[in-house]
């Protein structure tokens, strides 16, 4: 009775050929060039050597975004968010260790090729074509949190405490920009440790500062190429990984998953072809007479 192992395996593997075909092209996809940001891409430049940790930007961000004071950190008394959360789109942290001491500002990096946007099913997260700002529209969000899985910087946060939760993350104060203002965090910074502008100009400025004081700064701009580049850039006197900025290669974060999806579902040909082949096999089987009696 029955089936030969070989025949069965062949069919199973044929059925999975769709998935298997994804294996080959992804290997070569790593040679892809960096994605190009929009010409007028906006962003931030944070200079860790200038920040004095006054957290004025943290409070200004809460005010501008209607976020509550966050007393979850120290003794439950002080407004001192310790990390990004549904109540904090922008935080200042202090690194103290072998490499010295430094403050660190965390907010959405506004990636040139954002993984969160790639993850989002019906575009609650989108990247603006002109400014490159990654913004959130709750109308198209189902709260699946796949953006949180996708983000290499662990930025999007979810309102766990609410029955009608949203995703919370920095949108570069896009409402303020529309009014002709700059983001709240850069506006209030007394030391101009964080400045706002076009990404291309910020990148130039960052490189100018590094060139002017090569002994002070780490020799590169974080965000120039990381994960395909980000619109928020960092320069620092301590290594970036000590500041909690992950060591990432130049490949855009969504590339691996996207190349599989694109290869397998290019023009939707493979699924349609598979459907046709399967139907044809069944029709032939049926005519062949050995077909099963019981068809649903």
């Amino acid at each position, binding site marked *: *009775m*029955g*089936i030969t*192992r070989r025949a*069965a*395996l062949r*069919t*199973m593997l044929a059925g*999975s050929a*769709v*998935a*298997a075909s*994804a294996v080959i092209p992804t*290997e070569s996809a790593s040679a892809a060039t960096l994605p190009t940001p929009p010409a007028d891409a906006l962003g931030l430049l944070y200079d860790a050597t200038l920040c004095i940790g006054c957290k004025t930007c943290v409070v200004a961000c809460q005010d501008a975004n209607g976020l509550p004071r966050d007393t979850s950190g120290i003794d439950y008394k002080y407004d001192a968010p310790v990390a990004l*959360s549904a109540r904090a789109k922008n935080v200042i942290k202090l690194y103290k260790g072998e490499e010295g001491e430094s403050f660190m500002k965390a907010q959405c990096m506004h990636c040139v090729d954002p993984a969160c946007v*790639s*993850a*989002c*099913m*019906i*575009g609650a997260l989108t990247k603006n074509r002109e400014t490159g700002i990654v913004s959130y529209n*709750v109308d*198209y*969000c*189902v*709260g*699946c*949190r*796949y953006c949180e*899985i*996708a983000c*290499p910087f*662990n930025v999007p946060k*979810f309102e*766990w405490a609410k*029955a*009608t*939760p*949203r995703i919370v993350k920095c949108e570069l104060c896009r409402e303020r920009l529309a009014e002709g203002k700059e983001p709240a965090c850069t506006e209030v910074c007394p030391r101009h440790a964080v400045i706002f502008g076009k990404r291309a100009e910020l990148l130039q400025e960052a490189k100018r500062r590094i060139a002017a004081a090569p002994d002070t700064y780490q020799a590169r701009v974080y965000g120039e190429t990381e994960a395909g580049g980000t619109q928020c850039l960092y320069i620092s006197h301590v290594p970036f990984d000590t500041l909690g900025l992950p060591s990432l290669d130049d490949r855009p*974060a*969504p590339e*691996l*998953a*996207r190349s*599989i*999806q*694109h290869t*397998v579902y290019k023009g939707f040909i493979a*699924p349609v072809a598979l*459907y046709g082949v399967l139907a044809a096999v*069944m029709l032939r*089987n*049926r005519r*062949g007479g*050995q*077909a*099963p009696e*019981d*068809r*649903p």
Partner: protein
Amino acid sequence: MSAHVHAAPVGGRMMTPSARALFALFGVAMVLVAWRLIAGLGATTAMNDGYPFGLWIAFDVVTGTALACGGYAVAILVYILNRGQYSPLVRPALLTSALGYSLAGIGVALDVGRWWDLWRVPIYFWRWNLNSALLEIALCIMAYVVVLWIEVAPFILEKYRDSDNLTLRRVSRSAVPALKKASVWIIALGLVLPTMHQSSLGTLMLLANSRLHELWRTPMVPLFFLLTCVSMGYAVVVFESAFSGVAFGRKPETAMLASLAAVIAPLQFVVVVLRVADLAMRGVLGSLFNGDLRSNMVLLELVLFLAPAAMLMSASSRNNLGHLVRSAMVMMFAGALYRFDVFLVAFNPGAHWSYFPSVPELLVTVGLVAAEVLAYVFIVRNFPILSGGHPAAPERQAAS
């Protein structure tokens, strides 16, 4: 062994003591579901911004749908490989699949924060993000639930062919032949959709990129998910046959399951060989022996994949039902562990994050599985799903 199917309702009392226990578990889950809907996910689950996917995704959806691939696995065998002699397995396998996928759908609805907006995903086609593996999975699973119930519908409607109720009789007599006529096109859809979304479930976590541990971060994940959903699907069919044997005093299809096992055992080998080859080609074979949690988990996976293959090597062991069931359970566990590993163990959001499912999360999952078992028992008792001898009610044998 006949190619003809004489499926008939098993009959018997629904409210057995074990059914009462299952109802109690389901009741507890419903209370907790109400709490989750009122108080939110933070109050009821252990999920957090580091681990935004928890048990409900890793088990109810990712593992649950794989265990519900019995219908997929058996349909490949019966309709594509044209092995009609296995057709008695089709009905129970499709029913389990329909129930399992429906349950996964309910699991998703509980898991997403803004469940009342879920309807927008299939409707707002002009906003579909075709880069999103999750979108494809969502659409495929929604479509597949519909396809599965269409496949199951004739078994349910058959019962009403000679019903006293005129409407039911009419629906039954017109729908059943129509569905049989269209069956090739429906079954083909029922094969394409799982092929798509089961592989894409593997693609899903690849978007986490550097935050997914290198032992699992490979473009092969979609293939592994597809291969393991087939073996898990077969394992459930074995388990189900044995369960029906015990629960309804029926004769299990041991010979049939034994010849299935002969096919599935080598598939387990294939997964292990591909897995090891993939690790070697990516140059990370060495980190298998780091001795840490993640490397030990991979070793455990490999052992669990190999064990059932070894258990089913000889024909005599394959023809022993107890042995078949034990190996099937290991097979299910192997596939489940691989999926849990990809979704929870391999994912590393940073040292200060941790996740272990909360008691409400666990009880909701248990309650949903209890509901699935109850629905299965109810349907096989009342509708022609299982075939072969059933001493409980032999006089109703002619029903189909």
